[in-house]
C-alpha cells in the first residue's frame, strides 16, 4: 500500500500563528472597551478603518509581488498591526492620517522588507512615529475622558468629526479635548510646579490621569490573557516594566517633587500597551531568553529617559524602534550555553 510522505513531527501541532494573532486580538478587547467607555467611539471607528486599510494594502502589495494573497491575509498579522495602531492614536484623529499611517506600516515597513517575519521594525510603531512627527498637533489632541467632558459625542457625531465634517454645533475643541496626563505632567513640571500641586487638578486619579489609569488596567488584563495563553512570555513585559519602574523610583526617591512616582509612569500613556502588546512583537524583538530581558529592560529605561528629558511626552514608540534596531546585536551576544559545551554545573 502506498502512502503520502509527510514531514516530522507526525502529530497535531499545538500552536499556530493564526491562533496567536487571534489571541492578541481577543486580548485587545478589554482595553478597547475601556478606551471606548472613557473616550468615545473614535477608537472603534479607527480600528475598523485601519483594519480595512491594512488588509487592502497587504492584498495589493502581495499581488504586486506575485505572492499568494490568501495565506498572508489569513495569518491576521496585518489586522493586528492595524488594531495596535488604532488603539495608540487619538480617538478623533482625521481619517486620512490613519490611512497614511497604515499604508506606511504595511507597504513600507512590513512588505518592502519581505513581509511577516522579515521586518526589522514594528510596523505599528514605525507608522505611529511617522504620523507623530508629521502631524504633531493632531497626534497630541486627545479627548478628555468622559467624566471630565460634559458633552460626549455620540457615534455619528464622532464619525462626522473623523471624516472631516467638523464639530457638531455648539461644541468647541477646547471644551472637549485635554492634554494627556503625561503632557500635563511635563508642561507643569517645566513651569516648576511641584508634583503635589499638579496632582490637585481634577485630572488626576489614584496613580495616573483619571480614565487613563483604568484603560491601563484593562490592557493589563489583556496582557495577562496573552501570558496565560502563552502567546507571549513574561520576560519582555516584566523587564520592560521593571526597567521603567526602577528608573522612576530611583529619581522619585531623589526628589519626590520633581520626578513622578513609579506607578504614574506605569499607568500613563502607552506603557501597558507597549509592555504587553508592542514590545512583545516577536518578529522585531530579541529572540533569546536572556536577550529578551535586556531588550525589555532597555525599552523601559529608554522610555523613562525620553519622557523625562526628551522632546516628546510619550516615548513607547521611539524606545521600541530604537531597541528593534539593537535586537540582532543583543541576540548575538546572548546566545545560551549549549548542552555539553562547558562543564555541567549539575553536580
Amino acid at each position, binding site marked *: 500500500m502506498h502512502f503520502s510522505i509527510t514531514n516530522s513531527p*507526525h502529530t497535531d501541532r499545538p500552536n499556530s500563528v493564526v491562533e496567536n494573532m487571534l489571541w492578541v486580538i481577543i486580548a485587545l478587547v478589554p482595553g478597547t472597551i475601556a478606551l471606548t467607555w472613557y473616550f468615545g467611539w473614535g477608537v472603534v471607528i479607527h480600528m475598523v478603518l485601519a483594519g480595512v486599510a491594512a488588509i487592502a494594502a497587504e492584498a495589493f502589495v502581495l499581488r504586486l509581488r506575485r505572492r499568494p494573497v490568501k*495565506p498572508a491575509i489569513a495569518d491576521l498579522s496585518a489586522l493586528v498591526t492595524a488594531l495596535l495602531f488604532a488603539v495608540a492614536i487619538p480617538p478623533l484623529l482625521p481619517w486620512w492620517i490613519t490611512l497614511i499611517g497604515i499604508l506606511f506600516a504595511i507597504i513600507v515597513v512590513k512588505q518592502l522588507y519581505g513581509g511577516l517575519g522579515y521586518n526589522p521594525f514594528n510596523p505599528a510603531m514605525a507608522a505611529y512615529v511617522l504620523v507623530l512627527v508629521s502631524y504633531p498637533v493632531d497626534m497630541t489632541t486627545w479627548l478628555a475622558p468622559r467624566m471630565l467632558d460634559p458633552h460626549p459625542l455620540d457615534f455619528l457625531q464622532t464619525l462626522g468629526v473623523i471624516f472631516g465634517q467638523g464639530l457638531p454645533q455648539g461644541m468647541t475643541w477646547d471644551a472637549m479635548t485635554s492634554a494627556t496626563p503625561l503632557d500635563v505632567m511635563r508642561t507643569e513640571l517645566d513651569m516648576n510646579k511641584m508634583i503635589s500641586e499638579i496632582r490637585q487638578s481634577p485630572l488626576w486619579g489614584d496613580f495616573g490621569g483619571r480614565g487613563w489609569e483604568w484603560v491601563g488596567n484593562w490592557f493589563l488584563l489583556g496582557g495577562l490573557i496573552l501570558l496565560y495563553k502563552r502567546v507571549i512570555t513574561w520576560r519582555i513585559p516584566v523587564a520592560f516594566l521593571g526597567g521603567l519602574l526602577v528608573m522612576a523610583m530611583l529619581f522619585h526617591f531623589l526628589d519626590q517633587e520633581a520626578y513622578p512616582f513609579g506607578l504614574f509612569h506605569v499607568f500613563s500613556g502607552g506603557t501597558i500597551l507597549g509592555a504587553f502588546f508592542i514590545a512583545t512583537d516577536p518578529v522585531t524583538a530579541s529572540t533569546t531568553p536572556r536577550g529578551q530581558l535586556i531588550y525589555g529592560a532597555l525599552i523601559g529605561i529608554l522610555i523613562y529617559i525620553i519622557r523625562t528629558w526628551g522632546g516628546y511626552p510619550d516615548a513607547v514608540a521611539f524606545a521600541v524602534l530604537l531597541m528593534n534596531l539593537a535586537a540582532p546585536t543583543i541576540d548575538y551576544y546572548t546566545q545560551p550555553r549549549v*548542552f555539553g559545551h562547558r562543564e555541567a554545573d549539575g553536580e
Partner: protein
Amino acid sequence: MDARVEQRSERRLYRFHGGLHLPDNKHQSTGQPVRPAALPTLLVLPLSQHIGAPAKPLVAPGDSVLKGQMIAAAQGAVSAPVHASSSGTVVAVEKRPVPHPSGLPAPCIVIETDGEERWAELPEPWPDFEQRSADELIQRIRDAGIVGMGGAAFPTSVKLDPDRPIDTLVINGAECEPYITCDDMLMRERADRVIAGVAVLRHLLGVRQCLIGIEDNKPEAIGAMTRALAERDLPATEVVVIPTRYPSGGEKQLIRVLTGKEVPSGGIPAHVGIVCHNVGTAAAVADAVLEGKPLISRIVTLTGEGIAAPCNLEVAVGSLASELIGQAGGYSARASHLILGGPMMGFALPDDGVPITKAANCLLAASEREDPDPGPALACIRCGRCAEACPVTLLPQQMYWYAKAKDLEKVQEYNLFDCIECGCCAYVCPSHIPLVQYYRYAKNECWDQERERKKAEHARQRHEARVARLARLEAEKKARLKKKKAALKKKPDAAGGAADPKKAAIEAAMKRAAEKKAKLAQEGVTPANTEALTEAQQRQIEQAEARRKEASDGKQTSESP
C-alpha cells in the same frame, strides 16, 4: 512498589533544558501481551541495518540457510553481521526498498522461508559468563549482530570496548516517544531477560554502579523490573523512576537526568565515564551470551488509528511491514500515513513493502486526525518557542535562518551538529516550519562540503606528490648522467686518449648537444631541466614531500570547513 517510592526519594535527579509533555498515546498498544508474528514466506534482510560499514554477504542465490546462520559478515571495526532469521533458501542478493529516509533501495539478502525453522548450530551457551573474559564476551556480542535497539542501531560491541575506564552503566528504559511501547512490553513481560543482560553488561564493563532509567508513565514495567532486579540482587544496580518528559530517552538527556553529567559536545558518554544501552539491547545481549542466539527477532509496536488492532508483535528481522500490519488486523479505513518509528523522530514510509530491521521499533499508521497536514509553513516570526523547547539549548530559529540562507558556516556556528533531531522545536513552532528537515538538509550539505574539501585536498596532495616525484626522477637522471659524464671525461685521460669508436660517437653526440644548447642560449631559450638541481630546487622538493607526509597523517582534517 515500596522500593520504587524509596528510590524516588533517595536519588537526586537532574533536569535538562526544554523538552515537552506530549500526549503519550501508549495505552492503545499495551492492551494485549506480546504475540509472536507468523513466519513470513519472504525475509528481506538489508546488509546495512546499523551505523557503519554494510555487512558483506556470505551466501549466494540458491544457497540454503538455517535459522541463526550468519549470512553476511561484519566489515571493519564499526559494523555488524546479519543472520538468517529463519531457515530457507536465498533467492536473491540485490537492491530492494528499505526503510530509509532517502527512500533509495539498498542491497539485501532475500530468503524464501521453508517454514521448518531449522536452527543452525549455535555457539555454546555461556551461563557461566562470569568466567569469560571481556574480549570473549565482546566478540560473542559482535558475532551475534547486536546493535542499539532503541533506534540508533550503533553496533553494541563497539560501545562495550571503550578506551577509558567506565564508572556507570546506564540502561535506557525511558521510551519517551509517544505511541511506542515495545520496550515497555519487553520490561513488563521479560524483565528477567533484561536484568540478565544487564548482569552481563555490568560484568563486562566492570562498572561501579548501574542505573536503569524508566519514565514514570510505565508503572507496570517499573514494578516488573524492580521485582526482577530484587531476585537477581545485582550490586549497586537501581531502577530509577524519572519524570515523563520528551526526550528524556535521548542518550545524552537520560545521562543528564540520572547523573547530572553532560556528555561534551561532539563526545560520547564514555568521555564522562558512562556507557548507555537500551533495554532491548540488554535482552539481546542476554540471548547471545547465555544462549548463543544471534539477534534475529525483535518486538515491534504496531499502532495508530490507522491500524485495526494495535498490538506488539515479536517479529523476525526482515519481515515486511505489510505482512505485520496484516497480522494486526490490517489497516483501518482511517489510515492516511505510515510512519516508521515514533511520531517525533520517525519518518514517513511511501510504501509498506519494506522490511523490519533490527532497530525498527514501531510502525505507526496514523489517521488524518493524528497526523494532520499542517498546511504551508509560514515565515519564522522569531517567537522563540523553539528555543524554549530545545533540550540542547540551541537557537533553532537562528539555525533555521542560516540553513535556509545556505550559510553553512553560520549554521555550524550555531551548533548545528549538537542538534539531536528530536523535533521539539518543530512541534511547538506556530509557523509549522519543518525545522528538523532543514537541519538534516544542512547537515548533509556540510558533510558533502567536507567530502568535497577532502577530495580537493586529496587531489592537491596527489598533484604535489606527482610534481615532486617527477622532479626527483629528473634529478636522479641528471645525477646519473653527470656521473657518467665525469667518468667518461676521466677515462680518456687514464687511457691516454685512446678512444674507441663507440666513445667517439658519444662524444660527437655530446658535442652536438652542447652546440645546440649554445645556439639556443644565444637565441635566448633555456631548455628546462637541463642542469643538475640547484640547492633551492632540492629544498623545494623536500618541503613538498614533508607537506605531503603531514597531510597524509591527517593533521589537517580536524578543522571544520
